[in-house]
């Protein structure tokens, strides 16, 4: 495996303006203002954090996996990656990453796809797209901004390792993350973040053990210095 780039952040947890733990199986929806930094911490290791981003002022303009990977000519997301939207805006930039590699091709698990991937009897097991829908519908009801199934597009899986081979294979490999590893992004626009902390119990990549993650947000007092 090629060397991964490890970049730490100078920001301290005690200076954060927001600090919350998201349990596995929960969703999290929050606005991040331009210039703010958001960090996701893999508290216990190899947890998949399924994440979507939207332009906070126009949810139709949202994270685009294909535009993001094509722009950087690389399928893995890490420090320096610009998250590109469907309208080709830069939503956020990854400014720190102690894991080194994040996936955006594996998508989010759903009760439906679990039937195909594992067994038809797995239908009622909790899945990310249940959380995404709950989060989107709750946010819509609270704010009056429409957000629903049409908006659940290809997501990022922070801390997940989904290698593609030169012969065109794709696998879910053992995680490259570990307890305490984190990824940090700077918002280049006002953005909406929607997270499903993955509840998957069928995939060995999280050792069949979904675990909590922490989200921290800082104001951009040290704006653009990293």
């Amino acid at each position, binding site marked *: 495996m090629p060397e991964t780039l490890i970049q730490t952040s100078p920001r301290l947890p005690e200076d954060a303006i927001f600090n919350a733990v998201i349990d596995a199986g929960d969703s999290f929806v929050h606005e991040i203002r331009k210039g703010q930094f958001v960090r996701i911490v893999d508290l216990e290791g190899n947890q998949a954090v399924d994440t979507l981003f939207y332009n906070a002022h126009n949810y139709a303009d949202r994270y685009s996996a294909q535009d993001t990977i094509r722009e950087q000519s690389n399928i893995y997301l890490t420090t320096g990656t610009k998250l590109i939207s469907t309208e080709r805006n830069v939503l956020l930039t990854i400014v720190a990453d102690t894991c080194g590699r994040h996936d955006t091709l594996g998508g989010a698990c759903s009760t439906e796809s679990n039937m195909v991937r594992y067994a038809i009897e797995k239908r009622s097991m909790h899945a990310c797209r249940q959380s995404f829908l709950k989060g989107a519908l709750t946010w819509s009801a609270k704010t009056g901004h429409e957000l629903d199934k049409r908006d659940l597009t290809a997501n990022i899986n922070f801390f997940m390792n989904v290698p593609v081979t030169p012969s065109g*294979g794709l696998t879910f490999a053992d995680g490259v993350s570990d307890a305490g590893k984190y990824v940090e992004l700077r918002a280049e626009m006002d953005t909406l973040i929607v997270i499903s902390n993955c509840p998957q119990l069928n995939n060995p990549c999280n050792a069949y053990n979904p675990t909590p993650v922490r989200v921290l947000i800082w104001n951009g007092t040290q704006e653009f210095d990293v």
Partner: protein
Amino acid sequence: MCRRKTTRLSSSTLWEENLPGSATWSHVLKRGTALRITAIEDNSNVGAIFLNADNFSERLNLPDTLKAQHIARLTTGSVLYSDMARILCSITDDTLGWHDPLGGCSDAALVTKKYGDSTYQQARNHWHQNALDGFLIELAKYGLGLRDLMMNVNFFSKVEVHEDGSMHFIPNHSKAGDAIELRAEMNTLVILNSCQHPMDPSPKYAQKPVTLTLKQVEAPGPDDVCRNFRPENARGFTLTERYFL
């Protein structure tokens, strides 16, 4: 001038038409019919998105498609999964071995940067068009928009991924006469766009036409190549068949 290939019309052919280069096309492909796309020139590209025509909120989900089948390329045996774990279309025949699910589609800024501006007023049918606008215009004809856009496939193109994750467009991949056949397992709104692949390094704006052949085909049997491609696909076919019960 393009070299025209003559395609033999089989008894099952419903109709055939040519799609010019840089053009967008759509059709509700009925369950039990198939669409064969045949390249007329070398180095063609056909971008494609797929929606359930009976419920547009259900649409192609490429991450589900790739991870269910453990693939980062599309060829004979592969199927296109919707977000509801049903099979919209399956690839029953392919002369090429690799169609790209990763590269996405071109936009106006990319086309202008690569090929320069060329308006319709100046260039008429040779004006510079891009795939994103083509998809959005065609989606709008069905009351759909940017929120309904999804990751697209690029037929006839190949993007290889190296061990370090780097993406490499492979030039000279497809030849005139190469073809792919998509069998509809559901009533599927198919939207095609024949603009160049966004990673195509050629500095020349090229309009490559393809032939579209619509066919009546038999339902997939127990020995079907797509059903037996992987155990996941057998379950995908079961779920799709249940949708029509």
